[in-house]
């Protein structure tokens, strides 16, 4: 049930909390069984305070569940209409999803409400997800910012049904209050009882949106007092204030765990809800949907920046966005210039731009796939004698060389390219022999590919013997197969 890591729970207070909760559960079960409609009562089932129940039903009605008619008479049952457009935006943040996230977010609810209708909760993914998310939501400001307010709120002498209700109410109330619903905000406040001042403070500072209607608060306070006051007191007596606050913390950490797990669930493993990112607001941060969206965006941007920082050399020591962007710009420019330079070099060094004499440029499979294309593409060289390009390119600048004799130099450059030639000489015995005689080179490059094959036939074993170039040999045999 308690799904969080154990270090999050204060070890001393947790057991007592659960004990207490169990006691509450029995109470709740006893109390809730009698007069509630099964469909919604599982959510709202509070014999304690109908005002909050009404608020909750209203909130839920917004989400598509029909409200309970039996609470129609309470003053809260007709709260000011919720801001539906805001609601839509809020929902925009929670993509429909999460069958699996329910159990992560729901432990508290299950703890507190051992009713038979729990499976309804679990079966309702929307609600489960919302509850999980909101409980995650809740823990945050309490954990960091409102340390004083929240334990009081959670550890409020909540006895059974009230506790359950409160948890629900927290879910719904937070939902509503972030959506600026005065009614539910005030309902929550009313529930809070002793820590009313705290709650008010929290409300005022946390979201400036939940304006509490003074009239409704006044109307509800007495109701709450009479409904849950006694139980509150008894719980207070039995547990003591310290224990209560501890319990509050435990509950809160529990809820936080739920939220965390939910976040992990959605962010890491499952692919489908990719657009859902769990956001947490820190102290003093706004929690309305716009600010959340903005925060998500900023997070993504900083993540991209980090990736770019890793990508661009010499950028990881730089601090500051502007300087980092400078580095990135420089790097992109340098790469583009390099491409330009390299294309110039290729154009000069290898005027024909055919590289099929470089069989080792590609792995076998690609070359095979390219092979037929090469044969169809490749026009046979028909020009005159190949120049001993090697010496010239050694001496002069390659550009000058190609300008003087580049155009009509139809011979292929690459076997004569110094580096390549050296490499080939060291590796290929047959090229060694070939590159010795210019006439041989000429025939080699002027003739059809068949000539290659014919030349290779004699040396096939030799090539195969040089195991360093076994793949080259196989390539030649491939050509042979094609030609023969």
């Amino acid at each position, binding site marked *: 049930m308690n799904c969080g890591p154990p270090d999050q729970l204060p070890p001393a207070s947790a057991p007592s909390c659960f004990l207490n909760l169990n006691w509450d559960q029995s109470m709740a079960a006893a109390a809730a069984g009698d007069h509630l409609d099964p469909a919604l009562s599982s959510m709202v089932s509070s014999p304690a305070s109908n005002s909050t129940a009404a608020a909750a039903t209203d909130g839920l009605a917004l989400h598509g569940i029909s409200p309970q008619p039996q609470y129609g008479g309470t003053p809260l049952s007709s709260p000011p209409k919720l801001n539906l457009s805001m609601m839509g935006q809020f929902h925009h943040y929670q993509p429909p999803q999460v069958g699996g996230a329910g159990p992560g977010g729901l432990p508290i609810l299950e703890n507190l409400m051992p009713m038979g209708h729990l499976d309804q909760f679990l079966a309702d993914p929307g609600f489960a997800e919302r509850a999980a998310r909101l409980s995650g939501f809740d823990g945050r400001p309490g954990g960091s910012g409102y340390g004083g307010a929240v334990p009081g709120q959670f550890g409020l002498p909540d006895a059974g049904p009230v506790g359950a209700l409160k948890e629900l109410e927290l879910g719904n109330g937070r939902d509503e209050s972030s959506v600026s619903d005065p009614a539910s905000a005030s309902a929550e406040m009313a529930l809070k009882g002793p820590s009313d001042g705290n709650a008010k403070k929290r409300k005022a500072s946390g979201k400036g949106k939940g304006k509490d209607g003074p009239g409704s608060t006044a109307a509800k306070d007495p109701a709450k007092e009479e409904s849950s006051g006694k139980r509150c007191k008894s719980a207070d007596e039995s547990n003591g204030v310290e224990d209560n606050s501890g319990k509050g913390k435990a509950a809160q950490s529990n809820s936080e765990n739920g939220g965390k797990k939910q976040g992990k669930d959605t962010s890491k493993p499952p692919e489908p809800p990719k657009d859902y990112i769990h956001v947490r607001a820190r102290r003093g941060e706004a929690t309305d949907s716009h600010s959340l969206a903005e925060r998500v*965006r900023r997070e*993504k*941007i900083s993540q*991209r*920046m980090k*990736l*770019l920082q*890793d*990508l*661009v050399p010499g950028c990881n020591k730089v601090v*500051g*966005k*502007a300087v980092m*962007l*400078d580095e*990135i*710009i420089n*790097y*992109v*420019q340098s*790469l*583009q210039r*390099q*491409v*330009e330079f*390299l*294309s*110039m070099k*290729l*154009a*000069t*060094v*290898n*005027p*024909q*731009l*055919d*590289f*099929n004499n*470089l069989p*080792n*440029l*590609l*792995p076998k499979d*690609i070359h095979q*796939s*390219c092979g037929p*294309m*090469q044969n169809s*593409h*490749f026009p046979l060289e028909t020009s005159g004698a190949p120049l001993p390009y090697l010496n010239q390119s050694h001496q002069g600048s390659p*550009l000058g060389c*190609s*300008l003087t004799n*580049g155009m009509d130099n139809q011979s292929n450059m*690459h076997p004569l*390219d110094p*580096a*390549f030639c050296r*490499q080939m000489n060291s590796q290929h015995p047959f090229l060694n022999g070939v590159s010795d005689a210019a006439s041989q080179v000429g025939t080699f490059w002027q003739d059809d590919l068949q000539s290659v094959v014919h030349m290779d036939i004699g040396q096939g074993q030799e090539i195969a013997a040089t195991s360093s170039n076994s793949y080259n040999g196989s390539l030649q045999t491939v050509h042979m197969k094609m030609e023969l």
Partner: protein
Amino acid sequence: MHAPRKFRKAFMAQLLVSLRAAGQASKSMGLRERRDAVRLSSDVAMALASARTRSAPRSSAAWARALVARHAVERRNEALMRRIMGGAGYEMAAAAAAAARSRKEARSRRIVRRSRRVCSGSAGRRRRVSLAAAAAAAAASGGAVRCSAMAAARRMVKARLRVLRSLVPGGEALRGLSLLSETLDYVVCLKTQVELMQCLCKGSRPKLG
């Protein structure tokens, strides 16, 4: 962060094919034209390879499309591009380029008009707000200094982003997050392009892993 092996292989194969086409086409060219042809063929090869090796086949990167379209705008490239990309591919790219150009003209006129209106409005409002803020913060000195410093930093970042937008092909239409992710993708591919072309120049075998 390296480009995946699959991309490098596809890029290399495409590069060889398109360079061969360029070599064929550039027999009677001057050096400069030939360089342009090489550049074009390597760019197109990069774009094609990146579009081909994407995980989702339909979502080719914006920079790839923009790169091809940029080359397709030039009339003289038509024959070469046809040979590299095939007739249908070229037709598509050219049509996209032409459409983008005509659309861009109309759109840019509209945007300029609208932005002028918006800018004047928001600037006036901002000035008023900042005046009020300055009056409020006059007592608490230091606040204004910090504010102006932050504004300067933001302006610097904005200017850098503008430059980056002009560098990344197709980046003119992008803002913020999408610009950065495009840049990321583009830089990875550009790096691969440089490496492979260096290998071609040297005549050595590239590491395709």
